[in-house]
Structure formats: structure tokens, C-alpha cells
């Protein structure tokens, strides 16, 4: 940065020389001169330009280069910070919002660290031109500079207005986009009600507003450019008028007048830049504030002073002691007491929104308990290092999230050292191996935007493979078999039972078939435990669980009825 400033100083000092040479050349022309002297002047001009060019090159390279390095660091920091934030943070800040900060705001900040600083330092040092002009003729210099403050002011003011107009235009453009989107998504309705003319009118109305906004911005821009041209020219006229007068009065040489023109020209850009730079600083400050808002948020879930860092292994006994949890005003879990011995299976059933996922999320500390305690192997969960805790858990979330990468990379997501054999084994457990081998590129098939889309069931099974490959002590399945047919589900559960013999599992499901073999079944409703026991105990009880069971039996019967149906008319 300092080096950059030094380059700026040097650039300006050297640039100063060029008109000076010109002045001498022209003044000498008045007197006797020969070609050899002219050649000397000519080569001097080129030499000055060469040295100046070298410094200008270094100036840009260092100053703007710095801003790209800062941008890089800032972006890395931002990402690293995001990785530390908990799920409650992601509830508050939507993806789109975070993306806007990582793109637009970051760019605005970069503009400050690079161009803005470079140009303002440059403007500062270009004042030496002014010094030389004063040295030549103080009065003329002051007169010639009259238009400059006005110039900076106009640029700054109008640039602000342009920015505002630009934002409005963007908003209007977005409105047009969503209008088209809406119309085309509902094209069947539009056609059915023969609404195309009306829709076109609406579309045109939006477009007319768009035109108005654009033209009003054009006015501002035209005004800015025209007044700039006028003010720049005004400086020239002033120099010609008064300077010319002085030359006539012989208080100024012609060479000095020419040099004056040249210095004036060199001051124009730094002055225009000044107005623009002020604007950049304003925007940059606002954007930095938006970034700082995120940076200032402390990651709430982390290892703390109570964490026992010597701990390396866990057994898998889980206990919930009077646990409650709320999102803002909304209480999701109320006074949950549960004990899950290692090696046993707990099943959670209950209607949507009864708090099943929240309960599960407390175990890997995706969410933090607000009241009560979650104990693992008899000690508060916060005492266990986060890394140990999470690497002991295999988790299959309700909404399957796979990355745009190969299937192979997706399955070994948690265990990078996993061999291809382990990946295949995991895929076998989750009954997705055969599906994957059917793909043209097998395990190297790309997923997502740039690859293929898996079916819902295939996605879930891939996510299960991803969870079991690390041989977790605790397995959490959050409604992870919903898109898998009952036959495959049975096969997966059977394989899981084999490998989970020594491990703790918690399974959330809507299907009785999934949960009926669990050691313990808990029926949640409104965040509270309504019933718990084994399948048979709960059936005997004839409560909520039993009713759910009956309903599903009926549905199954109807389904099988549907399958055998084949009637000739």
C-alpha cells in the first residue's frame, strides 16, 4: 500500500516534467533553434513518457492489485465465518441475503480499497500540477481552476442520483421479469380465459414505467456529461482569454501558456475522479456495515471452557432431561424426558410440526438446548468436543441435500479417506448400489445442475450411505425413508439392524412399518411426549399410536386392492 502511494507520487512528479519540456521547446522556438535541439526536446518528451509510464504501471499494479488481495481475504473470511454459524443463524438470514452480501457488498468494499484509494491519493498528489501552475502565474492558475470544485460537486451529486435511479430501474426490471414469469407459468389459465390482450396491456404498463425511469436516468446522465464538457472547456477558455492577454502583455511566454493548457488537461481527470470517489466511499461504508453485521455475530455453538478436550470416544447413551425449545415466540418442545441406552433404537412418530426434527437436531448440536439438558454418556453434551460429537453421529436429514459433485464424492463426504470399496459397501447397505451401477458413469456420475437428477428415493438412499460410511456410534434418521418404497425400506432396515447392533439409533417416521421393531416408540404431539412404549404396548393401549396404525392398515389394504384391479368392460 505504502509502496503504491510512493508510485503515485513518482508518477505525478514525472508527469509534471512533460509540459515543462514542451514549454521550453516552444519558448526556444521563438528564438534561434536548430534541428538537433528540437530532436533533443522530442526525445526528452518520449523519455519522460517512458519513465512516467513505468511508474504508472507500478502504481496501478500495486494499488488495484492490493484490492483484489483484500477482496480475496475478505471473501475467504466471510465463508469461514459462515461455516461456523449455527442453524438458528441460517433461519434468520436467507441464502439470497447472504449471497447479496458476498457479492454486491464485497464488490463495493473492494472498490474502496482499490480504485477509490488510488484515485483519491492520486488526486491529492496531482495538486503538484496546481503548484507548478501557481509558480508560472498564480492569478491565472486560480482563475483556471475555478470550474474544478464545481465539477467535483456535480459529479458527486449526479452520481448519487444515478445510483438511486439505477436501483429503481433494477427493481422495475425485476417487476417485468416476474410479470413474464407469472404469465408464462400460468399460460394455461391465460389461454383458457383468453386473457392475452389484458396481460399484454399490463406488461406494457410495466414497460412504460420502465421507459420513464430509464429516460429520467438518461436525463441525469446527459446533464452530467454535458456539464462536464462545458466546465472542462470553460477552463480552456479562461486560460485562452486571460493567459492570451498576458502573452500579449508579455508577462507570460507562449510556451508557458501551452504548458498551462497541458497542466489543466492533466488536472481534469483527478477532479472528476474526486466526485466519483466520494460516492464510492459512501457506498463502500454502507456495504462494509452490512458485512460487519455478519462478522460481528459470534458463532453460538462451539467448544467452550467446559469442553473436555481429552475426550476422543463416546459410547452412545443419550438422555434428555426436561428439555424445552422455542423458535422466537413459538414453543416447539416442552419438557422432554427421554433415555436412550446405547445399542437401542428409539422411534419418533407424530404429526407434522410436532417437534420431531427439532428434537433430533439437538443431539449433534445443530440447535442448542434452551431449557433442560441433553446428556451424552451421562455428561452435558457441551462438554464433548464438537468434532468428536459430530464425527460419532451419522445423520440423514429430512430434506436430502446432496452436492453438485460425483456420487462417489457425495457418499464419502464425511470420510475423505474412504476407499472405493467402503463407498460401495455403504451404498449396498442403503440399497442404492445397483441403481448407481446402472448409471453410465457409475459412482463417478455427477449430480445436480451439471449432472443428473436422482429420484427422491435414490437421493435418500445416497444420503443414508453418506451417513453410515463413517460407522457412527449414533445414527439419526429424520424421516429418511419417506420416498423409498416399503419393500426397499424393509431391506434397508434389515441391513441397518445388522450394522447398528452396537449403536444407538433414532428414527423419525410416518410409517408404522418403519418403527414397529424399535425398542422404544415415542408419540410426539405439540412438542410433548403423548405416548411411549414398544409397538405392542402402544397397540394394547389403544391410543394415538393405535389409531395411526389402523389408518395405515386400511390404506395398505386399499393400495393392494388397486394393484390387483384389472377389469374388462
Amino acid at each position, binding site marked *: 500500500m505504502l509502496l503504491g502511494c510512493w508510485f503515485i507520487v513518482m508518477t505525478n512528479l514525472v508527469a509534471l516534467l512533460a509540459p515543462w519540456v514542451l514549454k521550453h521547446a516552444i519558448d526556444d522556438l521563438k528564438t534561434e533553434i536548430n*534541428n538537433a535541439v*528540437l*530532436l533533443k526536446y522530442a526525445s526528452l*518528451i518520449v523519455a519522460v*513518457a517512458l519513465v512516467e*509510464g513505468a511508474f504508472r504501471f507500478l502504481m*496501478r499494479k500495486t494499488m*488495484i492489485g492490493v484490492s483484489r488481495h483484500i*477482496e*480475496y481475504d475478505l471473501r*475467504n473470511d466471510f*465463508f469461514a465465518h*459462515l*461455516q*461456523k454459524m449455527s*442453524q438458528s443463524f*441460517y433461519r434468520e438470514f436467507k*441464502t439470497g441475503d447472504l449471497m447479496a452480501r458476498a457479492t454486491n457488498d464485497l464488490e463495493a468494499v473492494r472498490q474502496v480499497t482499490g480504485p477509490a484509494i488510488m484515485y483519491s491519493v492520486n488526486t491529492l498528489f496531482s495538486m503538484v500540477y496546481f503548484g507548478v501552475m501557481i509558480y508560472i502565474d498564480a492569478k491565472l492558475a486560480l482563475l483556471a481552476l475555478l470550474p474544478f470544485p464545481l465539477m467535483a460537486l456535480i459529479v458527486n451529486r449526479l452520481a448519487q442520483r444515478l445510483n438511486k435511479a439505477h436501483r429503481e430501474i433494477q427493481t422495475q*426490471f425485476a417487476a417485468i421479469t416476474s410479470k*413474464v*414469469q407469472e404469465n*408464462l*407459468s*400460468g*399460460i394455461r*389459465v*391465460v*389461454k*383458457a*380465459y*383468453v*386473457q392475452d390482450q*389484458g*396481460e*399484454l396491456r399490463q406488461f406494457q404498463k410495466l414497460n412504460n414505467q420502465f421507459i420513464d425511469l430509464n429516460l429520467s436516468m*438518461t436525463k441525469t446522465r446527459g*446533464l452530467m456529461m*454535458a456539464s462536464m*464538457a462545458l466546465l472542462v*472547456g470553460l477552463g*480552456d*477558455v479562461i486560460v*485562452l482569454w486571460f493567459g*492570451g*492577454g498576458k502573452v*500579449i502583455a508579455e508577462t507570460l511566454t*507562449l510556451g508557458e501558456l*501551452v504548458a498551462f*493548457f497541458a497542466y489543466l488537461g492533466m488536472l481534469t481527470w483527478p477532479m472528476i475522479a474526486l466526485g466519483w470517489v466520494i460516492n464510492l466511499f459512501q457506498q463502500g461504508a454502507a456495504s462494509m456495515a452490512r458485512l460487519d453485521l455478519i462478522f460481528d455475530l459470534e458463532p453460538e455453538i462451539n467448544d467452550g471452557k467446559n469442553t473436555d478436550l481429552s475426550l476422543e470416544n463416546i459410547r452412545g447413551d443419550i438422555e434428555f432431561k426436561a428439555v424445552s425449545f422455542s423458535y422466537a415466540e413459538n414453543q416447539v418442545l416442552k419438557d422432554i424426558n427421554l433415555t436412550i441406552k446405547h445399542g437401542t433404537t428409539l422411534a419418533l412418530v407424530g404429526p407434522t410440526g410436532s417437534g420431531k426434527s427439532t428434537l433430533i437436531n439437538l443431539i449433534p448440536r*445443530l440447535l442448542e438446548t434452551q431449557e433442560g439438558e441433553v446428556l451424552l454418556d451421562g455428561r452435558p453434551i457441551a462438554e464433548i468436543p464438537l468434532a468428536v460429537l459430530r464425527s460419532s*453421529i451419522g445423520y440423514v*436429514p429430512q430434506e436430502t441435500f446432496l452436492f*453438485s459433485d460425483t456420487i462417489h464424492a457425495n457418499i464419502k463426504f*464425511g470420510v475423505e479417506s474412504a476407499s472405493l470399496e467402503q463407498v460401495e459397501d455403504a451404498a449396498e447397505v442403503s440399497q442404492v448400489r445397483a441403481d448407481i451401477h446402472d448409471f453410465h458413469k457409475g459412482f463417478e456420475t455427477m449430480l445436480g445442475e451439471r449432472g443428473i437428477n436422482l429420484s427422491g428415493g435414490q437421493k435418500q438412499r445416497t444420503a443414508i450411505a453418506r451417513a453410515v460410511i463413517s460407522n457412527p456410534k449414533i445414527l439419526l434418521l429424520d424421516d429418511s425413508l419417506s420416498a423409498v418404497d416399503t419393500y426397499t425400506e424393509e431391506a434397508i432396515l434389515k441391513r441397518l439392524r445388522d450394522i447398528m447392533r452396537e449403536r444407538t439409533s433414532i428414527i423419525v417416521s410416518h410409517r408404522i412399518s418403519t418403527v414397529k421393531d424399535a425398542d422404544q416408540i415415542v408419540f410426539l404431539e405439540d412438542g410433548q411426549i403423548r405416548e411411549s412404549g414398544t409397538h405392542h404396548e402402544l397397540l394394547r393401549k389403544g391410543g394415538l399410536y393405535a389409531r395411526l396404525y389402523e389408518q395405515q392398515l386400511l390404506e395398505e389394504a*386399499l393400495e393392494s*386392492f*388397486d394393484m390387483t*384391479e384389472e*377389469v374388462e*368392460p
Partner: protein
Amino acid sequence: MSHNVHEEDVLGKAYDGRLMRRLLAYMRPYKFYVSLAILVLLLSSFAQLAGPYLTKLGIDNFIAQGNAGGLRTICVLYLLILMVDAIFQFCETYLVNWIGQKAMFDMRSQIFAHIQSLPIPYFDRNPVGRLVTRVTTDVSSLHQMLSSGAVAIFGDIFKLVGIVGVLLFLNWKLALVTFSVLPLLFYATFLFKRLVREIYRVIRLRIARINTFLQENVSGMSVVQLFRREATNFNKFDRLNAEHRDSYLQTILYYAMFFPVVRLISSLAVALIVWYGGGRVIQGALTFGGLVAFIQYADMFFRPIMDLSEKYNLMQSAMASSERIFKIMDEKSEPWAVNRLHPRPNCRGEIEFRNVWFAYKNDDFVLEDISFHVRPGEKVAFVGATGAGKTSLLSLLLRYYDTSRGEIFLDGVNIQEINPRDLRRYFGMVMQDIFIFDGSVARNIRLEDSEITDEQVRNAARDVHAEHFIEKLPQQYEHAVLERGKGLSVGQRQLLSFARALAHDPPILILDEATSSVDTETELLIQDALQRLMQNRTSLVVAHRLSTVQNSDRIIVLHKGRIREIGSHHELLARRGLYHQLYQLQYAQQERQQAMV
């Protein structure tokens, strides 16, 4: 990370005569303004050229002669020209943009209208997002070309020619000496532009990768954290980030080199002028003023050359956009056949399907040999398992698709002979996915049909029991519905779509009942509203409700694209066939629930 073609904007030619001619057609209505803009541009270019020449006159004729009065006159003249030029520049900017905006408005409207007129199968093939881009982004890039490209190119060329002319006029020998640096300037500029264009393409690719990665990781952050992938993912991100930075450092290098090089070249020109021109001054062949003017003009060369190379980019992307736009414009609209049907009030609502076959693709028939006849005012329910062909059958009636074989008749007229727009006016349609438009509740009922009065809107809403919830909304009928009806419950949306159908009072109702369940109270409202909706009109209903089938005059049972049974609810139940089984499966439970209520 694999390189992907579709991420990159594929750019081709910067000029294509065929496309250009079609584009220019959009300028034709504004011919007069275009000529005016070019005239103003010419004048403004001249005005800008005047400055150095006036300086020359001032120096030679007045300063050198010691004529202070004449100098003042020149200065006043200079000032006047500056002011006039400022006005010209403003007018030019405004005019060019005005033309561009108007032409784009016409073009957008035309594309939008055209896309709306395309047949439904086109929408099956082309994702909405892509079509939206045509109307919005692609047109914008054309606008850029028109407003800052096409016209400005004239301006740049004028300026270049003007400078060359003035210099030649002042002293042709010195002019030629000065021009000797021009090829260097051209070469440097175009080389620079090419390098920068290439690297910017890479940068766009890399920033897109960063953003995709970021977006994906933010969305899947819980998975990243659960599987403790923070470090690995950070390294990945770091790599993408560094690649992006390095590309930028390269552009900085180019820019840092380019600007000094340009200055060097123009210094070279000044040096040549001083050396050669200075010699001429000594010989008396050139005035001092001429020398100064030369130096100033030499400085002015650079701008238009830089701009010209910039325009190349604009033209390229505009050509690519217009290619895509015209491809859509060349798609065939729905067939607008001659209207052979009686005016609407007389539509009796008689429908006949005669041996209709239909396949979306090839020979994959979803409807096979369908024949049935619906009398005016009759209520017909279609039942069958998912995929039996019920929805396809209704789509044919509206001519969303045309039959593969066989004919459909409305009031005895083959619908092939009816203009689809006229045909659709006879139908009121309620689809399974209820489409709610952005805008007020009233607009959602009336749509764009201004003949429907506020009174009729309210009556329709009252008749289908939508009034209750509408009146509870903060601004009632003027309440703005959120995007796609967010904030309204499923049941409310259904009632709203019923009101829409009723307000348009069609002779024939087409209804694809939604399967989604609603609470009991709303369910009763919906059932009653349905009866009112079907009153006094021919109704064809894909039924999921027991009450709907029970109340229909006839039931047509479809199975795997064929009609298996036709008859009333009781007839079909008595037959103990397919309908009986479907009834057990789909409706029996509803009957039990109804019994409980």
C-alpha cells in the same frame, strides 16, 4: 471441477447482415428521430473539433499580433460553441436513448405477445426461465447495442474523420507524420481489447463458480457441519477464490500496461510534432498556433479508437441475443382458423368426442378411441386412477393439444374449425393447480375482462362462498394477493378460482378437482359452491369428491386411456365393475366421514 459450455456466453459474429436487417426494422417507425439524432451527433462532433482550432486562431491571429480585442471575440465564440455543444450532447444522449427505449418497448411487446400465442406443447418443451430471459435480458442487450452502440459508432467515426480532415487542412505533411503513430495506437488498442475480452470471459466463469459453490454450501450448511467438512470445503473455496483473484490480477496487469502504452504513443506523436513541426515553424511553414492545435488534436485521437473497440463487444452479444429472439419469433403461433361458430349467447354446450386418439409423443397413446356425447346442460364426471387420461381429455377440448386421430365437436362444429381464442371463450376452467395472479382479489376474479362489473365480481364471490374470507382481508376485494397466492389457504384459493369461473359465466364448465384435503368446514363450502357453479351449464368434471360424482348426471370411467364404463352413480355401483372398485378405494372413506359429520 469440470468446464461446462453452458456456463459461458457463446459469442459469435459481431455483425450479421440478415439479423441486422430484421433489427433495423424496429427502428423504422422512428426514422425521423434517428436522422435527427445522427444530425445532432454530427453537429456535436464538429463542435468538439472546434476547440483546438479556435485556440490556434487565438494564438496566431491575435496573441501573436497583440490583438487583445480579437482574442476576446474568439474567447466569446469559444464559450458559445461550448454551450451549444453541451446542449447538443444532452439532446443526442436523450434522443438516442429515447429511440432505443421505444424500439425495445415495441420489441418486448411483440415477443411477449408472440410467446403468449404459442401452442401449449411449446411450453412443455421450453422451461419458463429460458423464455423469460428472451423477453428481458436479451432485449436489454439489444437496447444497449442500439443506444450506446449503433449510433455512437457513427459519432466515433465522424470524430476520427474530422480530426484527420482538420489536421490535413492545417498542414498535410505534419498530419501525415502524426498519423504514422496511428497504426500503433490501433494495434495496441485492439490487442488489449482482445486480451481483456478473453480474460473477462474467464473471470465471469470463475465468479459464477464461486457463487454457485457459496450458494450450495450456504443451503447445505447443516450437512457440511454435521460431516465436519468445514476445512475441506474451505480449501475448495479458497482455491476457487484464488483462481478468481489471479485472473483479475492478470487484467490489472493488462490495464496497467495498456494505459502507459497509450500515453507513450501519444507522447510519441507530440514528440514527432515538436520535432518535425518545430522545424516547420522555423521554416515558417507552420504557425505557433498550428503547432499547439496539432498537439491538442493528437490527444483527441485516442478516445474514439478506444470506444470503437469497446463497441465490438456490444455488437457481439447483441447479435447473439437477436439470434435467440428471432428464433422464438419464427416459432409458429397457435392456428387461428376461421370462426365458424354462432356467437356465444347461443352456444348450447353440446359436446361430442368421436373416435379420439391422442399421444403427447409418437405412438405413446394416453387416450385410445374415445367416443362419447354430452347433451347441453348435462353434468358429466370423469373418474379413473391416476394416469387414466382424464386431464389429457379436457386439454384436448380446449385445444391445448390437437387430437392424433378422430374429431371433437362443439354444437356439431368440429373444433378444428374454430379459432382457439373464440373456442376458449365458451369454457370456464378450474384447474387442479390453482393459479393465482399477482394483484388484487378483484383482479383475480375479473382477470382482464373489463366488462365484468364490481357488482358481478362480488356476486360471483358471494355465490361460491368466497365472500367470507375476502371480507376479512384488510382491503377486501382490493387486497393485494402475495406472490402465487401465498397467504391464502388451499381452500380459499379454490373458492377464489370458482368465483373467477362463475364471474365469466361460461356456457361450459371444465373442472379438474384438486385432491388436496381441506378442513371440514371449507370442504362443505366447496361442495356447495361446486353445485352452484355447475348449475345451468354443461359441466365436465374430473372428480375426486364423492359429492361431485353423486350429483353428476353421468359418470364416464376411464382406465388406461380407454372408456370402460358409462352410467349414473347408482347404475355403476350396481354393476359391481371397475367403478365399484374405484369407489371402494377413493370414495368409501369420504362417505364414512360424511356420515360422521
